[in-house]
Structure formats: C-alpha cells, structure tokens
C-alpha cells in the first residue's frame, strides 16, 4: 500500500512537470518584456537590464526554465506585475474564501446528490427517476452565474434572508461567515449535484442487479439497509471517481461564483490577474489549481481500498 502510494505520487510528477512547461511557455509566448514591466514606466535602460540579470532573463530559455522551476520549488512564485506584492503573499491572502467555498460546496453536493441518485436508481423508470434525471440535465445546462443571480434575486433581494454579496472571514464570527457562504455554495453545488447524482444512479442501478442484493432481500433485510449498506457501498468506486474528476468543474465554477458574489478568493484573483495581464499571478494560480486537482484525484485512487477490499495495492 505504502509502496503503491509512493509509485502513484511519483507518477504525478511528470504530469505536473508538463503542466509547468506549458505554463512556462505560455508566459514566453506573451508579448512584452517582463523586466520592463516590473521596472515600471520611469525606469531607465540600465535598471531594466539589472532586473533582467537578477531574474535571469538574459540566460538561454532552458536555463531560465530551470531557474523558474527552482524558484517554484522553494515557494517563490515571483512578483506580481500588477499588485506589487510577491505572488505567494497574494495567494495566501486569497486562500481562505476559496477553501471555505469549495469545502462547503462539496459538503452540500455530496449530502444532496448521493441520496438523490440512490432514490432515482431505486425508483428507476418512475416519475421520481425522471425528475432527478431531468434536474441533472438542467444542472449541466444552466450556467452557474444565472443560477447565482436567480438565487440572489430570490433569497437576498425578495426574501431578504441573506446578504446579497460579499464575504466575511471566519475569524469575525461563524454566523456571518456561514450566512454569506451559503448562497454561493448552493449556487456552485448545482452542477456538482447533477454530476454526482447521475453517476450514483447509474452505478447503483448496476449493483442492484447483483446476486447478493437478491440474497439480502431473500433473507428479509430492510430495503433502506439494502440500498445504503449493500448497494451504495459496492457502487461507491465510480461515485468517488466522479467526485474527484468533478473538482475540475468545481474550480471553473469557483472562478465564476466568486465574481458573481464578489468573494475575494483565488477565483476572483484569477480574473483580475487576466484582466490586468499579470502573468506571474496567472501562472501561479493555474499551477496551484492544477496541483490541487491532480492531488485530489490521487487521493481518490487511494480511497478505493476503503470501499472495495478486492482492490489491493
């Protein structure tokens, strides 16, 4: 198991290396001299040259790549062109809202989607099933910002239950934190619920046809136990897989949701950085999000053993 873990961890290195190369080349493709941008408008040629030497921009491109990689591994993401801070500081300051939003979304999505999918599978072919599947197709189709504005309109403007927009750090009280977090999380969870419910349904339907389900029924096991203990546990592997793959959707959704709800997180930072053509920040955010995505899917692979003891590493 431990050896397998190490092997899998090692296998993510080439993927991340390719991501790093792509991201690095992206910056090199951009017009404009980074040294001149950092130096600002009032700098003379000597100062620009100095910065160029300091950043290693006068070296051959391969050498530059290794300098850049070396810096990355030491946690040095460079300096933001636009925010006049180091990118690492910038990211650290934006981390909390995004993590809170993502965790809350996953929590809502899993608690809603899994029972919904099991129910649809159990009632396969009935109107309940069609309703759940219909919701699922809708969830894939209605853009996250339309859902966001619809919910703001209903719950914040018409009913006045929650604040319209904004974010309050956890350190300033849990009530206000949750109050502002709930609407964006529900918004973001819709597409995730659609994805997970669909996979849960398909996976449970397949398991419900197995012999051991018939055996459980024959010995008089209660239906709810059959569904949630026997069926769901055996159907778990594809469900967990899709939760992991769905993180890509989640990350895309975070960018949009944070813009709709004016949450000062990493997603908002990404959009601001793109609008300001702040390449070091764009690079760092992409690398970070991709790393998270790859690591979560690594974790998902390792979780398989918990659900299916037949999988041994």
């Amino acid at each position: 198991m431990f050896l397998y873990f190490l092997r899998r961890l090692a296998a993510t290195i080439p993927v991340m290396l390719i991501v790093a190369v792509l991201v690095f080349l992206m910056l090199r493709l951009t017009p404009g001299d980074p040294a001149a941008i950092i130096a600002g408008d009032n700098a003379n040629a000597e100062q620009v040259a100095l910065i160029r030497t300091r950043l290693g921009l006068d070296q051959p491109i391969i050498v530059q790549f290794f300098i850049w990689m070396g810096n990355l591994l030491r946690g040095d993401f460079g300096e933001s062109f636009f925010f006049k801070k180091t990118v690492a500081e910038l990211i650290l300051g934006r981390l909390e809202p995004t993590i809170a939003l993502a965790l809350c979304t996953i929590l809502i999505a899993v608690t809603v989607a899994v029972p919904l999918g099991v129910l649809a599978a159990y009632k396969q072919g009935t109107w309940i099933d069609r309703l759940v599947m219909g919701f699922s197709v809708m969830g894939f189709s209605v853009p996250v910002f339309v859902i966001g504005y619809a919910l703001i309109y209903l719950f914040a403007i018409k009913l006045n239950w929650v604040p319209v927009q904004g974010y309050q750090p956890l350190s300033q009280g849990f009530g206000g934190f949750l109050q502002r977090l709930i609407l964006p999380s529900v918004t973001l969870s819709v597409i995730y619920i659609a994805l997970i419910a669909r996979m849960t349904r398909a996976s449970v339907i397949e398991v419900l046809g197995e012999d051991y389900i018939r055996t459980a029924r024959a010995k008089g096991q209660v239906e709810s136990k059959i569904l949630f203990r026997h069926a769901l546990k055996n159907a778990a592997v594809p469900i967990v897989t899709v939760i992991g793959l769905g993180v890509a959707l989640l990350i895309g959704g975070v960018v949009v949701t944070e813009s709709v709800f004016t949450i000062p997180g990493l997603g908002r930072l990404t959009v601001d950085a793109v609008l300001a053509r702040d390449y070091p920040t764009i690079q760092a955010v992409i690398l970070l999000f991709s790393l998270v995505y790859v690591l979560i899917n690594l974790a998902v692979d390792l979780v398989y053993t918990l659900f299916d003891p037949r999988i041994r590493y």
Partner: protein
Amino acid sequence: MSAEPVILAPAEAIAAPPRFGAWRKLLRHPGVLIGGGLILFMTLMGILAPVLGTINPAEINPTFRNRVPGMERTIRADDGSTRPYKHLMGTDSLGRDVYSRVVYGARVSILVGVTVATISVAIGLLIGLVAGYVRWLDGIIMRFMDGLMAIPAILLAIALVSLFRAGLFSVIVAIVVPEIPRVVRLVRSIVLSVREEPYVEAAIMAGTPTPALLVRHVLPNTVAPLIVQGTFICASAILVEAILSFLGVGIPPETPTWGNIMAEGRSLFRVYPHNILFPGVFLALTVLAVNMLGDGLRDTLDPKMAKR
C-alpha cells in the same frame, strides 16, 4: 488478396443493420426532437435577426437608459419618418434594446458552439489516430495530453484568452485547446480496441497500406462516438464562451453576446434584473437543447456509452 472480401463481408454485414435502425430510432427519440427543434429555432433566430423586429443592437440611446420590459417609444428613422417601437425586454444602462441584443446574441453562441465542436473533433481525431496507431508517438502524445487535462478547462481557457487580443478567434482557440485532449483520449481508445479486431488484422495481412487501413476500417468506428462527443463539446463551448464574456475576458463588449449582455447588467442587477434574466434564459435553453440532443444521440447511436 482473395481472402479479404471473404473475411470482411460478415463484419460489415453485422455492422450495417443497426445503423439504419438507429436512424429511425433517432427521429423518434423525444430528446433529439425537442433538443434539435430548439437548436433549429435558436439558429434561425440568429440568422433571421435583422427581420425579427429588431433595431440596431449596438445603438446607444442616452435618453432611454434602464427601461423596464414593455416600455414603448417612438423611433425616428434616418429619413425623418417615425414609428412606434416597444422594448419587449427593456433597455440596458446604455439605452440599447435588450430584445435586439438577445436575438443577435444567438449568432455568437451558435457559431462558437459549432466551430469549437468541429475544430476540436477534427484536431482530436487526427492526433488520436496517430497516437493510437503510431506506437512510439503514443507515450509522448498522451503524457502531453495528460498535462493539458490536469489544468481545469475554464481556467485554461481564461489563461489562453489573456495571451491574445480579445476577439471571436481567440475565444474559439481558447475553448478548443482544453477540449482536444478529451477527443484524443476517446479516439485513441477506439483505435486501440479496433486494431485488435479480426477484420483489421485481416486487412493488415492482406497488405492494406496504413493510411487506407485507418480511413477504411478504423475511422468509421469513431464516427458515432465523435458525433456524440462533438455535441457535448458544443454545449460546453456555448457555456464557456458565455462565462468568458461574462467575466469580461471574452468577446469585446460591443458585440452582443448573451454573456456580454449579462456582464453589462451586473452592476444594476438589484434594480433591473431583466438584463440578466432574458439572456440567461436563452443561454440556458440553448445549452439544455444541445445537451438533450447529445443524450439522445448517445442513446441511439452509441449503445455502449448509453449504459454509463
């Protein structure tokens, strides 16, 4: 050489009948009918936009800003004649007619959806065939694709648009690139399974040159899955284009796109929700229609995928 038709005949005989059955089933599938009908409606709406009672969607009118849906006013034409005009969906904060912008907005969405689907399927097919068939290139291509796929699609698209000048072309490129690896994976997996089939081995034995082999025996197997995949790519492309425009990094705000209209309506959303509502409904309906069509196509054309 004489062995070739003898071996190939049964394989083709088995493959042929379900295809005709599928076409008939396709036209009876409710998802295909409703989805296809809605897409046709949106496409016609985009094409016929000038004759659908619209006015110039870019025309700014400072006197009639932020009007609610249903407001009527008199329009003066260039020749001095006047006629009444009703702002069915109101006006935005620059006084532009939201109805006209929404109708014209269908053009960009449909165009981006279809173009992105076509280009990414074409490129993905080409790379996938090479990866699946040229053994030594397989590893290199697939590691590269894994790297691309590790970057969440919308994030990659947002980053890519920042490299070029904003516009239709750069938006299309930015949406195509993240979609390619998914097509490549699909095509490669089909190629890998097809190349073990007896009729392909027979064709190799018969000395069929590789390009002919790929075109005649491998390519037909990719058609149905690629039509399905292409439809889903189209849906996701329409969504991503709207997201990019909405975030202000996509197509320039002068062009009426559903995302742009909503981006415009953001600041005054609390007072005038119609700027978000109308384009939002049209966008959601279009994506829904394409997804329904995709589901229907998958059920009928690709029974193996339908189980998932």
